[in-house]
């Protein structure tokens, strides 16, 4: 027996409208949880991208004290020259550092006015020949204690800090979104139970005249599925919106090269969106399936 499509649409549609408040609550909960879930996933993806990019041949920077003597500068330069692990050295004097500073803070001229080239530290930008993170780390640390050196900053380290921070953050967000997702399933369960209660007379008559279980169940299951799907649709919108906002933010500050590598490929956004839709449908169908099997026995 084929389920009549127009019957299904009519029943599902009127169910959705009848319980509009509960339906909206379910949709919003699904949307919020999936949006968080999606954004957390993309954040991870972004960090992965950044790490990958920075792992390929990145430099470290040896910052000298602003008042380092010429002899100290020369000593560090010689030591770097003598290291076989170093592929390339670029010396940034105070003028060059000032240029870079102006680039970085282009948007805030007030800040630039307060700084003189002589306030800025000179530095060596070092490209190691061996890009293995541990080898770079080791090489960089050798210069930390040289006289006149203020600090050695390796991008590696920064990236690692960001990575572990975002990993913790995204784990917490993912965990929270899973709890919210469970709440969404419970809400959908409840909405469907209410819908079945509202239609108990119809259900009674349907059983009486011999409608099959699936015929009775399907409109409710579809209703739950649509709630999940609509919620996921909103979440996909939010994820695209967040990604677009981030893109814009980063391209406005295009000199922040470190952040730029966090940009996530559109392809990844699509893949995440698809995942969200699938999860939404599963959560909605599951919530309603449980309600239907609990309250619709023959």
């Amino acid at each position, binding site marked *: 027996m084929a389920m009549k499509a127009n019957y299904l649409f009519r029943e599902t549609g009127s169910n959705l409208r009848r319980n509009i408040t509960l339906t909206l609550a379910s949709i919003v909960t699904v949307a919020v949880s999936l949006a968080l879930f999606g954004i957390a996933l993309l954040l991870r993806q972004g960090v992965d991208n950044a790490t990958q990019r920075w792992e390929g041949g990145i430099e470290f920077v040896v910052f000298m004290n602003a008042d380092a003597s010429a002899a100290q500068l020369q000593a560090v330069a010689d030591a770097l020259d003598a290291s076989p692990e170093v592929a390339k050295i670029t010396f940034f004097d105070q003028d060059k550092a000032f240029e870079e500073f102006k680039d970085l803070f282009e948007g805030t001229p007030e800040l630039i006015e307060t700084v003189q080239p002589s306030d800025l530290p000179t530095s060596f930008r070092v490209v190691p020949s061996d890009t293995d993170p541990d080898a770079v780390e080791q090489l960089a640390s050798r210069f930390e204690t040289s006289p006149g050196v203020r600090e050695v900053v390796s991008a590696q380290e920064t990236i690692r800090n960001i990575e572990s921070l975002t990993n913790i953050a995204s784990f917490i967000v993912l965990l929270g979104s899973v709890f919210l997702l469970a709440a969404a399933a419970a809400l959908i369960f409840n909405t469907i139970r209410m819908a079945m209660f509202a239609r108990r007379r119809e259900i009674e*008559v349907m*059983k009486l*005249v011999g409608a099959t279980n699936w*015929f009775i169940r399907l409109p409710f299951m579809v209703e739950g599925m649509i709630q999940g799907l609509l919620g996921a649709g909103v979440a996909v919108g939010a994820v695209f919106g967040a990604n677009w906002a981030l893109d814009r933010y980063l391209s406005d500050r295009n000199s922040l090269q470190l952040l730029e590598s966090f940009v996530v490929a559109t392809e990844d956004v699509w893949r995440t969106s698809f995942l969200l839709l699938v999860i939404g449908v599963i959560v909605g169908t599951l919530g309603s399936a449980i309600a239907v099997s609990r309250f619709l026995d023959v």
Partner: protein
Amino acid sequence: MIKLENVTKAYKGEVLALHEASCEINKGEFVFLVGPSGSGKSTFIRLLNKEEQPDKGRIFVAGKDIGTLSSWKVPYLRRNIGCIFQDFKLLPNKTVGQNVAFALEVIGRPNHVVRNQVPAILELVGLSKKMNNLPHELSGGEQQRVSIARAFVNRPLILLADEPTGNLDPATSVGIMRLLDRINRTGTTVVMATHDRGIVDTMRRRVVELDRGTIVRDQARGVYE
């Protein structure tokens, strides 16, 4: 058509609703189930369309042991059994025509069947003019006619009626009984629970009397007592 073999039914820890009941009803018969309130008439009827399961004994409907029927087949059993009740069980927000059409739609009958059958059956129960009215705009007798139309529109083999005149005045009840009699004459087996003495005594059909769950009398062309 219907056969009960030593059927016993007790609700959770309660007194017996039906005790060792055996009874055979042939195709085309009209049977009154009589007895005081609580004697097990409704239980008898609910067992026949598998709304309840017996604790002991076997029940056959249309040659099939319905105790062994798997649950997905129950709807198909019910398509052969029409049911009417004291409280009509009409859907209040659907018109007369929609109420009857609903019974066909939910068992997947095609639209053209629904379009043909609904007016025809409403004609049969004399309600063609009320097709677009809502149930609350109808008298009790008219509402019961709608519920008969809904039960019979699928041409079931059996019609089960649980006190169908319980809410109706005697004059209206006579009209309902005429209709059930007409349906019975088309070959439909009718089982009707009632404690309306007047109806049983004028119809003079087979009477099965229940007393505290036991069949105490089974009489052809019987009277109420």
